[in-house]
């Protein structure tokens, strides 16, 4: 039973989906060598099929994206409690004849957000925030312009993001979101939260990220926010999943950002259930070692 007389049936399942990379320029029957955008294929193996070919380097056709989401809607929507969606909702910048623009990135991200809303929202309620299945998106490094570069808000990009995700981000967090673009959703109110972390503020390839040492660094400010939020969730005896696009690996995060982040994931092991990330495209797991991170931090002192 939820507040306001509402109720929700839990299934004990949730979906994690990531790196959809839909490409509006993808055209069936064109040449793979031309990023599946144009050209006559040299042979059968060079031809772009309707739903794509594994490993050929093209992005997702719009059909692959549409049929994937339709399959999820038809087969999973009513079997899951929430959706963790870890970003990269736009093609790669791999075609010099069609360079990506900021407005294309915003537009496709907005379309994708609307698509997810339509699938998972309560169709019987005019309240746009009433979801049958909560969706918790996070931002990918391809979802920002220029590539990988993303600063603390408020900026044009964070404002656009705040608008397009306004139905996903809880109202009381929207001001904080406009600055730090991290937030959490109580997928089971008072019990279970999913935290969407702006991993681009820790990401080494983001030219605006240097360390997590200085208070001016976006990563430093993100970790401050994270600490206060985790402490509050602990005080409320809630449990939490950490989610984001770029996974915490030493080569993805700046050195001490990685170690500091690892420490937070471990020192709140009474409430953190695990971490769900995308970006690498490979299905695998990494055990982060807090003992080593403590040593690294102490050594650097």
């Amino acid at each position, binding site marked *: 039973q939820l507040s306001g007389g509402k109720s929700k049936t839990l299934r004990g399942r949730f979906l994690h989906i990531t790196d959809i990379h839909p490409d509006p320029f993808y055209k069936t029957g064109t040449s793979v060598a031309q990023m599946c955008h144009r050209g006559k294929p040299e042979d059968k193996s060079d031809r772009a099929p*309707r739903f794509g070919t594994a490993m050929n380097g093209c992005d*997702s056709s719009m059909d692959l994206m549409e049929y994937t989401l339709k399959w999820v809607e038809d087969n999973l929507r009513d079997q899951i409690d929430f959706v963790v969606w870890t970003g990269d909702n736009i093609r*790669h910048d791999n075609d010099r004849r069609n360079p990506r623009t900021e407005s294309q990135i915003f537009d496709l991200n907005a379309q994708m957000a609307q698509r997810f809303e339509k699938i998972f929202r309560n169709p019987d309620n005019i309240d746009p925030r009433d979801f049958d299945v909560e969706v918790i998106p996070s931002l990918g490094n391809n979802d920002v312009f220029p590539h990988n570069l993303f600063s603390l808000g408020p900026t044009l990009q964070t404002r656009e993001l705040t608008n397009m995700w306004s139905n996903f981000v809880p109202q009381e967090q929207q001001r904080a979101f406009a600055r730090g673009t991290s937030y959490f959703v109580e997928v089971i109110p008072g019990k279970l939260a999913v935290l969407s972390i702006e991993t681009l503020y820790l990401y080494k390839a983001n030219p605006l990220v240097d360390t997590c040492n200085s208070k001016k660094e976006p990563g430093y400010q993100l970790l401050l926010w994270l600490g206060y939020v985790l402490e509050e969730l602990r005080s409320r005896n809630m449990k939490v999943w950490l989610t984001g696009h770029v996974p915490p*690996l030493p080569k993805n995060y700046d050195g001490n950002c990685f170690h500091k982040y690892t420490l937070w994931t471990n020192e709140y092991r009474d409430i953190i259930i695990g971490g769900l990330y*995308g970006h690498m495209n490979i299905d*695998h797991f990494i*055990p982060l070692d807090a003992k080593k991170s403590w040593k690294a931090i102490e050594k650097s002192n």
Partner: protein
Amino acid sequence: SKAFNEKKNGEFGDDDDSDDVLDSAVEASDARIMGAKPVNKVAYIEKVRETYYNKIASKASSFASRRSRKKHKNKNKNDKNNKKPTHYKGKVDRYSIVTVAGSVIPTFNPAFRVWEYNISGLESSCSTNAMHTQEWGTFFDNLETKIEQDLMEEENTFGWAGALWRSGKIDKTIPSRMPTDLPLGPAYTPQLFTPTRFVQYYADLKDIERKYSQALDDGLNEEEAAAKAFAYQVEYSSDDAPYPMKSLLTKDYIDLAVELAYNETLWTKFTERAFLSSGYDD
């Protein structure tokens, strides 16, 4: 730099999970910045094995042999303690598990995952829902002020935490140790919200293309053919052979890491799944 560090520390310096060993991760990542074509991914996953799984296995075995030696020594003194050594019982809570998902983009085959988690007992505990100490709105208003105050404190960009500590200030981006009186959470002991199982779905693009062409040949129009051909299917579940996981606790992942370090057959299967049954090789 890498060569210097190797010389200085030895290839596997004690507890030195040198970040350098994941160089290929960055190379692979850089290579794919401009596109989706997979590059050096086998090298990457082999480095994951070497850097994480092998080292955990080596720690587990040295710990087990220490225990075993100790038990052997004590055997005559106290036979009641002669139980089978538990490898690293009580040692896994230094680890936190990061799961990295396969993607929809056909870098390999398109994929996503459905997680299952324990909700038993939730109904009885729901009655405490309303006992919030503070509304979230108030919390976030206060949070903004707290963070502003933290940031206004004297900026010290030189010498970072060392300088902060010398000056008696605390770096708030480093957490305090978890209080010892707090119990371990759902990642470590079975309880409400503990993940119990996952099902990995994938779309076999070769198979879909074959079925789609066949349907077109059979006279269906494009939409009918697509509807008939396109489907996701279960690639594997976490409790499937050859390395079924009883549950998805941190301990289970650590056990799996140890198995993957030693067993080539399991490792082959693991990498096949890592690349979403696409048959990828460098």
